[in-house]
Each structure stands twice: as structure tokens, then as C-alpha cells.
């Protein structure tokens, strides 16, 4: 193999190491199997928005720790929590819902009800949920 090609190959291999490390580090944030659904948003993008953050986890989890500025909204206390959320929201503001991890469906359910029942439009689900948020802010 001519020298430049060997060097090129070496560079290709070298790049693989940090890439693999990153892939392991961010394993919770990106699914290799399927593309995030259209209403999912990753932590970085979400933070650029002046969005209203909603925590769909159970109340105890919210009390222990939650994203700064996030409001609790879960199915158990829906009727009590929803009015405060609706009063904090302003037209044009996006809503981002998260639950504990990628696998939980509570955020998806909350987002669905906000859209169908409250008639809100820009409702997003945080990819990777709280776990992804934690990874980002470690």
C-alpha cells in the first residue's frame, strides 16, 4: 500500500476511538434502532428554546430533582396540576415533556393529552428523558 493510503487508513482508525467513546457515553440519548418521532426533541435543541418544561414523572421524583424551571404534570394529579401549567404557558411558547428515560411512556401520554384535550399545538417529548438531561448536565 502506498504511504499516503496507509496514513489515510491510520487516520480513519484513529477517529474510530473517540467516536466509540462518544457512542458509549451518549447511548441513552440516541436510539440506533429507529429515528426519533417527529415530536421528539433532543436536549441540546430543547435548551435553545424558551420552552416550558414539564416533568411527567411521579410527584416524589419531581420533588427530589427536576429540570430548572420545570413544572410537574403527571396523570395521577392531572386535574390539580394542569391549571397551573396552562396559566404559566403563553401562546407561541413550546412545551417539552420528559419522563425518566427513553423507555418510559408517561411523557408521550402527557404530550398526547395536552394536544388532544387542552388543544395545545407545540408539544414535544424530550428524547432520552430525564436520564438524557442528566447525562448532558453531569
Amino acid at each position, binding site marked *: 500500500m502506498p504511504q499516503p493510503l496507509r496514513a489515510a487508513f491510520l487516520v480513519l482508525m484513529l477517529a474510530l476511538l473517540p467516536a466509540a467513546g462518544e457512542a458509549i457515553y451518549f447511548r441513552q440519548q440516541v436510539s440506533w434502532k429507529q429515528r426519533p418521532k417527529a415530536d421528539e426533541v433532543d436536549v441540546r435543541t430543547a435548551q435553545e428554546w424558551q420552552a416550558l418544561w414539564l416533568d411527567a414523572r411521579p410527584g416524589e421524583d419531581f420533588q427530589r430533582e427536576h429540570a430548572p424551571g420545570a413544572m410537574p404534570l403527571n396523570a395521577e394529579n392531572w386535574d390539580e396540576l394542569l391549571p397551573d401549567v396552562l396559566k404559566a404557558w403563553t401562546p407561541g411558547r413550546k412545551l417539552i415533556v420528559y419522563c425518566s428515560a427513553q423507555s418510559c411512556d408517561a411523557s408521550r401520554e402527557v404530550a398526547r*393529552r395536552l394536544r388532544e384535550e387542552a388543544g395545545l399545538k407545540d408539544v414535544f417529548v424530550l428524547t432520552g428523558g430525564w436520564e438524557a438531561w442528566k447525562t448532558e448536565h453531569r
Partner: protein
Amino acid sequence: MKMKVLLALGLLGSLSDVHASLKWEQSQVELHPAPGDATAVGTFKYTNTGNTVVHFKSVHTSCGCTTAAQTKDQAAPGESGEITATFKVGASTGVQQKSVRVETDDPNEPFTTLVLRAVIPQLMELRPTFIYWESSEAPKPKIIAVKAAKELNTRSLKVTSSNANFATKVQLAGPNEFKIEVTPRDTANPSDASLKIEPDGGGKAFYATARVVNPTRAN
């Protein structure tokens, strides 16, 4: 050579026939809580059909709204038992699916996922539960459509607005269906109201929110 060793090992394994195995009567339970129930409880029954003791290592639920409990820490050969999963209904609606992950020391099947499906009836459906006027908008009435479940036998609704700025009017829109017309007195200043909606048959109240709000710039 390798193949032979593997084969021999396999034979040995099947001859000794020491195995533990939990047989679940069903791995999915569907529940239909009655209107107003606070919890829905599903029971998953198992029997140890193996000839060694199976120990439960952990039982995890997929969501904080579900709790699971096993009555025993282990199952001796031939022994039966059950794991109960309790789903807190709260204000959930529609079909809720929660899973319970059971971990045992059974080498053949260390993990079992049990599924609890709860179909929760909705007594009253409000569409939407939220109406708002931007402060530049004219104070025209907006409608909340209400569908009540047949069981409620609703003939009229009582709507109470927490803020005098929002006037409400109820119209019958069909059998068990109503329209609530909400009109703000003015849309000059921000204000909000909680609308309490009660069926005449009594029971649980439902809530909607009305607001006059200053718009933010879209982001």
C-alpha cells in the same frame, strides 16, 4: 473436536435435568376499573414446575403510578404464588399499559415481563379543556364541547367560573352532549379562570381553564 465437546456437554446437561422454571398463568392482564375507582389491581399467578427452588431477585414496574408486590421471596418446586400489580388510576384516561419486570435466579429465563393493561372509562370528555384569548383578540365567545358517559345520566351541567370576567352559558347539544359557551367581559388585561363543571347527577367535578393572555413572540 469442538463440536464433540459441545455435544457431550449438551447431553450431560439434558441427562442431569436439573432445572428451575416458573410457569405464569398469564403474562398479560387487562383491567376494567369502574368509574371512580382509585386503583386497579392485577394478579399474576405462577407455579414452579421445575425441580429446584426459584428465588425472586427483584420486581420492577415501568412507572411510578404502578406498584408491584410478591408475597414470597422464593418458590419451591411445585409451589404456586402470585404477584400483584396495583395501578393508581388518578386522572388517567383511555388505555394505560404498564409493565412489571420480574427477575429470578432461574438461569433459563431470568427475566419475565408482565403486562398490566388498564382500560379506564372516561366519565366526561371536555374538548378542549383550555381556551384562551390573546389580549389583541375581540372578546367573542368560545365553545367547550362536553360529552358525558351514559352512566352519568346527565341532563344538565352546572358551570362555576372562578373569575367574574368569564361568563358561561350551557346549551344542550344532543343526548349526553353539551356546549359550554365562554365569553370574557374584556380582553384588555390578562386574567384567568378555573371553570368547574358538575353534572346534575352529582359525583366528580371536572375542570377547564380559560385565560386572557398577552402573546409571547414565537420562538
